[in-house]
């Protein structure tokens, strides 16, 4: 058992940064979804660490809420990706098409 909260917080920060990197670089919608999951899990790890070492049970409660919120989001996200696949038969996204006429 590692008892230094900084280790867990650092892992969470690394996870979050990896998620942000994936969101920016991935062009496949599923890949972006996975990266968002990494970010969400960084949040959970952060909250659990604070709850365990600093603040008490409210951290765990907050984590339960964030897990539920993430699940809700992923369900609807996958549904939209399936919809996109049905209409276009690929799931590549081009987020920077703002200048198109």
């Amino acid at each position: 058992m590692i008892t230094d909260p900084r280790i867990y917080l650092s892992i969470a920060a690394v996870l979050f940064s990896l998620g942000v990197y994936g969101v920016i670089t991935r062009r496949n919608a599923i890949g972006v979804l996975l990266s968002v999951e990494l970010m969400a899990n960084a949040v959970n790890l952060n909250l659990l660490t604070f709850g365990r070492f600093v603040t008490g049970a409210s951290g765990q409660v907050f984590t339960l809420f964030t897990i539920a919120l993430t699940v809700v989001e992923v369900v609807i996200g996958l549904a939209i990706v399936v919809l996109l696949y049905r209409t276009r038969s690929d799931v590549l996204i081009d987020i920077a098409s703002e200048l198109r006429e």
Partner: protein
Amino acid sequence: MTWTDLAPLGVELILLAGALSLLIVDLILPPGDKRILGIGTLGVFLAGLLATWTLPLDGLALGGAYEGDAMGVFLKRVFLLSGALAVLAVQGHGPKAWPRRQGEYHQLILYSVLGMSLLSGVRDLILLAVAFELMGVPLYALAAWQKRDAGAAEGALKLYLTGAVSSAATLYGFSVLYGLSGSTRIADVAAAVSAHPSPLLALGATVAVAGMGFKLGVVPFHMWVPDTYEGSPTPFIAFLSVGPKAAGAAALVQLLLPGHGALLGTVMELFLVLSAASLVLATLMALPQSNVKRLLAFSGIGHMGILLMAIATGTVDGLASLLFYLLGYLFTNAGAFVVVHAIREDGGDDSIDSFNGLVHRSWFLSGAMLLFLLSLAGVPFVVGFWAKLFVFMAAWQAGFEWLVILGALVSVLSLFYYLRVAKAMFMGTTERRDEVPMHWSVRLAVSICLIAITGMGLYPNPFVAVAEAAAKAFLG
């Protein structure tokens, strides 16, 4: 906990009861004509609006995580009206285009408004996160509503991805704020930030606010806005472009302004830069657009810049001007999108060209659209002028002279692209001379918006007084 503890949540309970009974009624009704669901939803919104005047909504609820006050009541009216207008305008289109999915459409709007309504008085980070998602998740489904259309799926995916990333970022910011302050109460977080300012707390606050910026659609988090607007049903966009923006502004107010959240000092520079960037870039990108929905999308991004300016002042005047702005923007923008919807129903394709010669085919629609566009641009005698003026005055007093000058310049420039639509309507030519067919609901929605913007444009004082009272109640 007793029932009286839930009294401040009266409007939310009405919305929830309405949405759940709609679910049951939708199951009982035989497949076929389900128009009654839309009328029922309008009834729920009207009941909620009535409740904001009749029920005692002040006080703490949910163990202190929610507090009703005059500002919350003001915002709830804005949210309920935006939902009601979106539902009203779809009554002609819905039964034709997706007759079997009317129940779901109306329920999702109700749940989204329920989330917004909770945001109007949130005092706790957990409730803030939950209410934000409750508002946002129905919007993802609604954006993909025209499911045979590839553009709709793409627009919905962009809305979803930016929404999901922004939620994750906001939650990460919340987790840092929570961990360093030891409490999920927004007031305790603010106290900890002012007692022991640290770079990490500033980081948490910045990440949380940037995440909310995504939802508001301010530059540089605006990529989803034009594509989502283009691909989704227009009455829904009339809702998306107003309700969630107002709710996002409400959430920022709860977090940032003194009295409860008071994190404003930490993110002030970020706010001013985002505001200036939104104002300038939105105007420049709106100029070449040939699609009215994309044009209005960029115009909306510019308006978010003005909202950020109003929040950044942090004064009673600034907050009052923000509330008045939201009310004016609600009717102006929703009205404009309902007109675009009416043209689309007539066989148009949302391009500026489909507005050509509209004046020969409908005085009512072209005149209404002209007033909506003038109000968006901020021309006197319609509400947009007063709304912008009050924000600019508050911002000038708060010392953001350069931002006010920039905002005024951009407003003048924006007249150019708004009037391109007006020029098509009044100077363009069309072969058709038949009257534009309009469902009664569209006519009613446009009339309500028209009366509201001219009424508030000619007699702004009573509305400003209510907004000021609400702002004073919040800032104390």
